[in-house]
């Protein structure tokens, strides 16, 4: 297992500001996704599936839901005597008040990095959803004799404030990096999954500190593109980076395409999540359900179409749910009709209401609200 030699680092708060509705009370990593997961399940499972045994999760704010979700790391087999899961909240020092860039976060976990005995480190965000074979990425890294390997995808670049757009040569070597350039059309953009030697990360961090650098993408990656051997690892199959509530909505709906779903949830590299011990989903007499994903614990007696239904959702008889995402433990009463809606956790929609968003702009109902 190559993973034994890699320590994982996940930024759970990175890009929270892209979906303020969903991250008002939680981290990007704990945003619910695909009926029964949280976004952090994807990077975490990717790492575990490659045999990585030590993962640090960097948190900055609002991490109560994340802690609740991760617990001791048991569902990911990361509840260990040696290694395992480390939650890394900020120290109460001047550092914690930084602008929230990844570089600041990494400075805050300097001790965690230096104490790790693994030779390599892999960095990941929480807002990109994909299933990758990190062992294959490691082989690629070794074969190319790379200093830094960055997983990338070809397509329309996400609109993050520091999206890295790259130009690669025929050997997948990165020759040019632009930070959030204003280009339309398809490009090769970084999925921000980066592998390098731990010693290199430490060296780059020390340089950044001494030069008072503050921007991970611009100062660490872009500035070093000609000095270091950087390679791009092309991600096969499904990937989506969440940069807005619209892409969050789309990413969920992507899974109604069985091919995307089969790639993301392939049985060789399963995605693990917290277990809830719900009963199987129950469908009532004369319920109608079409082209939808449903989690355990739901009781569905109404009509559901093109929707993503999370655990323990109750949809009463006579309710109609179309093109919507309904999160955990929400209740949709009879006679209510929903279209293009994102309903957060523990919401109650009382009888005979009609909520409808636009196709390109879903309506959002916040956690615990009674409509």
């Amino acid at each position: 297992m190559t993973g034994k030699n890699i320590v994982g680092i996940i930024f759970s708060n990175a890009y929270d500001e892209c979906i303020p509705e969903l991250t008002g009370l939680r981290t990007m990593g704990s945003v619910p996704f695909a009926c029964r997961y949280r976004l952090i399940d994807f990077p975490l499972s990717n790492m575990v599936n490659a045999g990585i045994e030590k993962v640090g999760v960097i948190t900055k704010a609002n991490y109560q839901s994340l802690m609740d979700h991760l617990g001791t790391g048991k569902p990911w087999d990361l509840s260990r005597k040696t290694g395992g899961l480390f939650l890394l909240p900020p120290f109460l020092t001047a550092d914690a008040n930084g602008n929230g860039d990844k570089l600041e976060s990494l400075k805050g976990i300097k001790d965690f990095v230096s104490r790790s005995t693994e030779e390599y480190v892999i960095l990941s965000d929480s807002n990109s959803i994909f299933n990758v074979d990190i062992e294959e990425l490691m082989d690629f890294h070794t074969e190319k004799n790379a200093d830094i390997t960055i997983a990338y995808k070809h397509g329309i670049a996400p609109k993050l404030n520091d999206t890295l757009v790259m130009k690669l040569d025929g050997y997948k070597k990165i020759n040019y990096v632009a930070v959030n350039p204003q280009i339309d059309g398809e490009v090769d953009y970084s999925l921000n999954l980066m592998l390098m030697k731990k010693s290199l990360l430490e060296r780059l961090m020390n340089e950044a500190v001494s030069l008072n650098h503050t921007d991970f993408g611009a100062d660490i990656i872009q500035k070093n593109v000609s000095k270091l051997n950087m390679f791009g690892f092309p991600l096969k199959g499904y990937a989506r980076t969440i940069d807005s509530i619209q892409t969050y909505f789309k990413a969920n709906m992507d899974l109604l395409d069985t091919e995307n779903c089969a790639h993301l949830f392939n049985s060789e590299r399963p995605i693990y999540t917290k277990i809830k011990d719900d009963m199987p989903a129950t469908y009532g007499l004369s319920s109608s359900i079409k082209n939808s994903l449903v989690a355990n614990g739901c009781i569905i007696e109404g009509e559901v179409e093109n929707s993503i239904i999370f655990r323990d959702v109750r949809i009463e008889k006579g309710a109609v749910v179309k093109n919507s995402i309904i999160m955990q433990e929400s209740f949709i009463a009879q006679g209510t009709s929903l279209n293009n809606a994102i309903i957060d956790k523990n919401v109650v929609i009382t009888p005979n209401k009609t909520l409808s968003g636009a196709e390109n702009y879903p309506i959002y109902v916040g956690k615990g609200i009674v409509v």
Partner: protein
Amino acid sequence: MARKMECIAMLLAGGQGSRLGVLTKNIAKPAVPYGGKYRIIDFPLSNCVNSGISTVGILTQYQPLELNDYIGNGQAWDLDRSNGGVHMLSPYQQIKGMEWYKGTANAIYQNINFIDRYNPDYVAVLSGDHIYKMDYNKMLDYHKQNNAACTIAMLEVPWEEASRFGLMVLNDDNSIAKFEEKPKNPSSNKASMGVYIFTWSKLRKYLIDDENNPDSSNDFGHDVIPAMHSAGERMFAYLFDGYWKDVGTIDSLWEANLDLLNPKVDLDLSDNTWKIYSKTPIAPPQYVSASANLQNSMVAEGSQIYGEVDYSVLFHNVTVKDGATVRYSIVMPGAVIEEGADVEYAIVAENAVIKKGAKIGKRPEDVTDREEWGVAVVGPDVTIEEGAEVAPKAMIGKEEE
């Protein structure tokens, strides 16, 4: 020495359940899948945890491999504890030799040392093959109030079925006057549920006496309980009035699954205050396609539904392809129902494949001789070839290689 426990549970899970045929060929009856994501043993185990009994010995003998694997360290039931927790107890070799568990009482007898480690005041002896939700703690309170040596949980069964059960005739104070084991003309309809609480010091003595009696069949129902009764021990019945089902036969297993779809049946698995825990497989959400026609059913995660499903229980990772129909049936984990196949009044076991156009089972209305009708069973890992038919009441197992 382990810390003292007030009450520990001994769960009898060694039964073969031979009437379940191909379903229990390679697994013990308590490991038989039930209710879309559970196994039968999840019910007594979850009852223990929910009742605050955190030390459980599971007595296994017949085909323990799958059960051992399933229970593991007990983590799924929160029974991975520093004090107590779950223990798999198989027969083992001792200095005087080695013997199998000769009967239910002998199984407990052989584990007296295990029980003594916890120095309990009370021991609950439970059967691993019934579906019910019950607070053993309330029963223990009742046992203590009565200062009883033994308390037996009982429920009232319909009079016409009473002769299938071990029955109890009660005095006014619910103490037990008389036992009747499967009588032809029952004088009571109060049946034993196979749930006992004993005062350990009493039970210990009777187990040793029973072992020293060469004529005994070493069974709780036949030997130990009657011996305690005739010796005049204080024995009480504890009335239970919820859902309870013995899933000992194919028909009762089928029925117990479909009971979950009946809103009139008093077995609520969505109750968060009394969860039934199980080892959860890693599976994505279930997908119901645009072509599917799904109603009145229970479906677990990882399943993909393209065909028609009505009044059925589908376990995890089941595939029902386009144009296939599944009605009044139980489909266990990983089974595949291919295009145009027709499954009615059937149990399709784990990883079975029903190929295109095959027909499994029949509606009772479509059978001329009602005596010939029964639930059709396709055993684990069996493949039913294209267009083949499996008659009602038939049971298809995998051929030995």
